[in-house]
């Protein structure tokens, strides 16, 4: 009877040890899987330590005016022609109080804003130019916080963070000054409208919004220009397209 009992104890002890070993194995396995960046938790590509080198190389590349999709862009492209509205003394640049509605046909609310971006710009980050009683410019600027994988804030950022602005201008000419290297500019279509895309500098292909990017869209009234940084290019394009969703109209 005693031998039987102690055998049973040994079997149970062994069973518990095996079960605990399985548990520890699962613990370590799950932790490794959660950390290895595979599948749904894909780890972002790390930014090279000398990321600034890519910017300084890009800054040496040629810059010149060029017409793309019927829009003249480049370092000395003319600023909008307000059709004589701003030639007289009746010119105002207003910074409306935070949260106030600008109004008029140039006003907009973004139909898409990336996660974490406040839909209400801070004071000083909304401006309206009014000439001869007509609004000719509406400008709004938004802050983009950096974004990390929440489970590992020490990993490379998903978004580097920065700011972007959206500006709508009444203009009789389709031209807008952009300072980036000429080779970074090309055609794009935004919600069926011809536009120019200035791609950002991406050090070793890392697309986290390190460099300046822009989209200039031809409109019936003139131009919409979106300029900024801090986000992957795909998010930037979504912001542009969101202007033409029902909310953005």
């Amino acid at each position, binding site marked *: 009877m005693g031998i039987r009992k102690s055998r049973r104890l040994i079997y149970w002890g062994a*069973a518990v040890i*095996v*079960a*605990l070993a*399985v*548990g*520890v*194995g*699962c*613990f370590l*396995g*799950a*932790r490794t899987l*959660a950390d290895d960046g595979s599948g749904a938790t894909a780890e972002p590509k790390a*930014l090279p*330590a000398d*990321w*600034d080198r890519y*910017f*300084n190389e890009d*800054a040496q590349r040629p810059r010149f005016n060029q017409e793309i999709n019927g829009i003249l862009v480049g370092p000395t492209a003319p*600023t909008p022609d*307000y059709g004589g509205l*701003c030639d007289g003394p009746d*010119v105002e*640049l207003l*910074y409306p109080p935070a949260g106030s509605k600008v109004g008029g046909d140039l006003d907009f609310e973004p139909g898409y804003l990336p996660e974490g971006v406040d839909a209400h710009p*801070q*004071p*000083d980050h909304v*401006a309206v*130019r009014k000439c001869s009683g007509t609004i000719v*410019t509406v*400008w709004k*600027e938004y*802050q*983009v*916080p*950096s974004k990390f994988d929440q489970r590992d*804030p*020490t990993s*490379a*950022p998903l978004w*580097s*963070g*920065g*700011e972007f*602005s959206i500006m709508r201008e009444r203009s009789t000419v389709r031209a*807008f*000054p952009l*300072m*980036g290297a000429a080779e970074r500019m090309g055609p794009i279509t935004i919600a069926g409208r011809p536009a120019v895309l200035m791609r950002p*500098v991406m050090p070793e292909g890392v697309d*986290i919004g*390190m*460099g*300046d990017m822009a989209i200039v869209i031809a409109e019936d009234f003139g131009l919409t220009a979106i*300029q900024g*940084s*801090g986000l992957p290019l795909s998010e930037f394009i979504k912001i542009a397209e969101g202007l033409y969703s029902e909310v953005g109209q």
Partner: protein
Amino acid sequence: MRPFFILTVICAVIGALAGVYAPRTSEATIYHFQLLVHPGASQTLNCGWHDGHCPNNPSAGHALDWANSAQYQINWRSFGWRSFSGSGVIARGTIKGVREECWKVKVEVRSSIPSGVIQGVISYTHSDTSMSGTTFDINGSSSYQWTARAVGYTRETDEPGCMTAHHLHQTDSVTGWSRNSAKYPTANECQPGWEGCDNPHPIYTFGYHQTSHGWYYEF
């Protein structure tokens, strides 16, 4: 056999859940950084704290207007600090020339630790630059280190309604930045005898920064 199987499954489930959600227990090291950004033009203050146009919103504005003639240089000026010994690059500035509602030179400040992450944007309005896209090192040390360099110049003209006389309108990205209210007055605030209203201001001297920002990184 059956109890053993159940016990094993329970251990496996508990182990797997703990593996995913249990906090990491490694010992953390925290590095702290601070950047004090000084005025970038002349030492003459044209308008105290405001937003938009002087003297709009003096209670909350982060902008100061500094006298500067057309074509005169606009400069990045800062003291940088880090909590660990020695000196080095604590951030990098990227110079950007942009036309928004007015012409601006912006310096995007991205930290070295964590690498490339935005810490703020300093805007120099009514300015232009031939250095758009270039970067520069912003230094720091445990006893504060000075960095100064040209980033642009004051424009001859600006867009309609932007500027009545040549000056630099300097501001920051506001969120996470503090204005140095102790040294500079609001647009409406000058009282006789207060040094904040006297010109010229000792803008190169430690303590006379316009705005500041701190960040940290935990390993």
